[in-house]
């Protein structure tokens, strides 16, 4: 699946997107955040307050308990500040 990062999540990780293949026990968005934090300091920093991070699957807002199976695109970002 494709992972996308925006705003300071993107800046902390140091990239805007990447292809990822999470292990099979990574079932939900929350699991994915926990798994991402193990991938290096930059991820640990980006997700240090993991519960404040918002997520979207295939461009639709989801909560952290949403399953990621079948997702083509999973995005992580801070609370939005548009408008």
């Amino acid at each position, binding site marked *: 699946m494709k992972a996308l990062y*925006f705003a300071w999540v993107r800046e902390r990780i140091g990239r805007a997107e990447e292809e990822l293949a999470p292990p099979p026990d990574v079932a939900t968005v929350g699991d994915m955040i926990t798994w991402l934090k193990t991938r290096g300091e930059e991820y640990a920093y980006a997700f240090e307050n993991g519960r404040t991070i918002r997520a979207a699957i295939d461009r639709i807002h989801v909560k952290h308990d949403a399953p990621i199976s079948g997702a083509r695109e999973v995005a992580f970002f801070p609370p*939005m*500040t548009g*408008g």
Partner: protein
Amino acid sequence: MAVAPTIRVQSEPFDTATEIAALATGRTDIGAVVTFTGLCRDEGGRLARLDLEHYPGMAEAEMGRVADEALQRWPLFGLTVIHRYGPIRPGEPIVLVVTASLHRTAAFDAAEFLMDYLKSAAPFWKKEVLAESSEAGWVDARHEDQQALARW
């Protein structure tokens, strides 16, 4: 009444008058038009500009979902939502909502609903670039904007 909302995500400025005209010109059934324009402030000279990041594709999709929800809730004749991204200087417009209806209440309520939801659900992020130091920092989400959703 099948109204197709106008949804645009763009870097270039927009013109409020043009958008009102696009919605209302030549029509004789509209009784009320409400516009909301959100502008970039310089915060007392502190800001050089805002850099607006967005999630291409999802921004348009989310704005469309909020617009469709507004069209279901209120009897609108027309609806326009435009949001800019990229560098925006103080005094320039960032976001525009235009609503048209028979009576004023629907137009006002729909415009407020749209702005409340865009603030908290449209995937845009503002970074402030300071005038003095050229330092930059991400804007924090306002608690009031989260609370504003509760009334709908």
